[in-house]
């Protein structure tokens, strides 16, 4: 790309604005070395401080075990959340039960905090459609279409306004989603509507193989808030306290009718999903420093400095988390039986006759074509 250099920028007379006029600071409480200003620490109870830690362990163990299951052929394609623990936990911990959370899929612990069971998350990644029913019962949805569900988030927030509901709706999505037209329309419209919506971008630097700097020429996602006339913030997404604190304030702002563009700066340590090999497009040198900035270790340092580490029995916690995971797998394995009716009957409230005929035709072919069931069974199940 060539830039037009016929006129030097400092020769220009008219009052041009650039992103340099609005430097976006990164909000941080605990720095990369675990150091912090105790004045800046939010006023949480010991239980809450420990809770945040435990949830991060949940997120981490979940990610590790999901990948193992996938490698063993017991799970469909999954995306690891390793590296995002503070971002997911800090943002999720600020939400209430009545809030809506439309996730991109990497936000397991945030959904668990809203009452979704781990079994149902496992069912989702096994491609068992009922999972989204159970998520919806807890005001959650996983929207696979990148960016596409953001206007729905605006609509839910709008509905909360019309019905005077004391709640907020948040969308979680990645940096790639911010390049979609849907993001633009969703945030802009939310601003016009004063919708209680939080657009939470986990900027993990990578959209599959596309780095953040190829996603946009903007220095940050947060700065876009200004263009839409809404509140924006860039937070160290590997700092669970900063994320939690900023998200709590974002929730307050949203409740008062100020939509928020929230950028949690983090790093995707592993592939986009188990189908992706990141060594194809990024150097080990880039990944290494982020491994040293592990959000969980950083928070451990904080807990030690605060004298809270005695409250944590890490080994017992991990054992407990693993037991919960074991129980969830067992429950997921026992889930069923399935019925082909469900493929058809939920499309409309009432089954149209043509669709019913297609269902009967599928039943007939399963009955009469000896090999059909075999073809269906032969395919490995997630």
């Amino acid at each position, binding site marked *: 790309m060539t830039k037009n250099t016929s006129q030097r920028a400092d020769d220009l007379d008219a009052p041009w604005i650039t992103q340099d006029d609005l430097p976006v600071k990164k909000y941080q409480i605990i720095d990369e070395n675990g150091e912090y200003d105790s004045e800046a620490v939010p006023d949480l109870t010991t239980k809450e401080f420990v809770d945040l830690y435990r949830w991060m362990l949940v997120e981490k163990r979940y990610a590790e075990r999901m990948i193992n299951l996938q490698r063993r052929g017991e799970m469909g394609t999954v995306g690891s959340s390793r590296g995002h623990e503070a971002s997911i936990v800090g943002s999720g911990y600020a939400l209430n039960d009545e809030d809506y959370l439309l996730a991109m899929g990497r936000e397991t612990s945030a959904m668990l905090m809203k009452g979704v069971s781990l079994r149902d998350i496992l069912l989702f990644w096994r491609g068992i*459609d*009922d999972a*989204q*029913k159970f*998520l*919806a*019962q807890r005001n959650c*949805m996983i*929207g696979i*279409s990148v960016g*596409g*569900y*953001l*206007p*729905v*988030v*605006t*609509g*839910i*927030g*709008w*509905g*909360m306004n*019309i*019905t005077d*509901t004391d709640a907020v*709706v948040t969308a979680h999505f990645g940096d790639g989603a911010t390049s979609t*037209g*849907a993001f633009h*329309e*969703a945030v*802009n*419209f939310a601003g*016009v509507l004063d919708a209680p919506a939080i657009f939470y971008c986990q900027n993990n630097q990578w959209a599959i193989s596309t780095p953040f700097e190829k996603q946009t020429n903007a220095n940050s996602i947060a700065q876009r808030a200004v263009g839409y006339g809404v509140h924006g913030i860039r937070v160290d997404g590997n700092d669970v306290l900063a994320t939690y604190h900023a998200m709590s304030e974002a929730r307050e702002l949203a409740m008062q009718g100020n939509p928020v563009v929230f950028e949690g700066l983090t790093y995707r340590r592993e592939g986009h999903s188990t189908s992706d090999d990141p060594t194809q497009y990024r150097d080990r040198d880039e990944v290494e420093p982020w491994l040293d900035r592990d959000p969980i270790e950083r928070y451990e340092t904080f807990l030690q400095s605060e004298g809270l580490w005695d409250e944590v029995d890490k080994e017992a916690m991990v054992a407990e988390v693993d037991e919960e995971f074991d129980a969830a797998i067992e429950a997921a394995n026992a889930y069923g039986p399935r019925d082909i009716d*469900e493929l058809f009957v*939920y*499309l*409309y*409230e*009432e089954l*149209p*006759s*043509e*669709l019913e005929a297609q269902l009967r035709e599928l039943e007939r072919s399963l009955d009469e074509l000896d090999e059909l069931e075999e073809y269906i069974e032969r395919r490995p199940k997630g």
Partner: protein
Amino acid sequence: MPETIINAINMALTEEMERDERVVVFGEDVAETGGVFRATEGLKDKFGGTRVVDTPLSEIAIAGGAVGLAVFGLRPVAEIQFSGFLPPAFDQLVTHASRMRWRTRGEWSAPMVVRTPYGAGIRALEHHSESLEGAYAHIPGLKVVIPSTPYDSKGLLKASIRDPDPVLFMEPKHVYRSIREDVPDDDYEVPIGEAAVRQEGEEVTVISWGAMMHKTLEAVEKIDVDAEVIDLRTISPMDRETILESVKKTGRCVVVHEAPKSGGWASEIIATINDEVLMYLEAPIERVTGFDIPVPLLSMEDYYIPHPPRIAEAIERVAD
């Protein structure tokens, strides 16, 4: 007093907003000016700015916002100013509206209406004249409704607003104001998924909808064929029974639509007839449609529109 289609739509919206406070009307220029075709005139004065809302110029957010409102328990009626502007919102219809109930196994749903004027013949600019109902009818989970008369416009729009599933309500803008009939003040619905037999006949079944319905009736007037004329009214889910019963009786069929020929909804109708009543046919089925080109600009759009002489010729050929 006989009413136009536009009046009938306004009546339906007014009555449904009175009946159900969950009904919210929004779109570009719908509140202050009452819409570019005045379909929503007076609604803001009557129901206020919370329920009648001018939106930014954002088709994606209008359609997606409707999905969110519907999920949250409201009954959104969104207007897309011209169906030529609907493609950006197509994603919201395909990816979210049509499958919210299915995706959540019935836990959430998207009872919403997207109203949009469609079709050629009003001497408009590019992107103001499309008929892509077949593309939308191809989406599982989305209902597609096209009225052709004022009476049906009111009854079908009411049914669409009350429907538990998402409905794309395509309005034949060419005949928005050119036909009038009595539209009762009463509360009535015209059921979605039921075709109407506009004229009974024995020799040829002629199927059409929307603005083309009137061209078809005009064509039938011109010729000496005892045609049975069916107004499909709902594209999806389609009233197969009415079509099949009629074709069994006549053994001949012509389908008329304004949309491009290839892959148009006529193809689906003909395939259905082949599936179910092929042996009753006494002649090949014909279709009279637009061409597989974009709708021409105003100076040449009438070359595109299936006018009555083309329809009449096809009916006579099939009847012969």
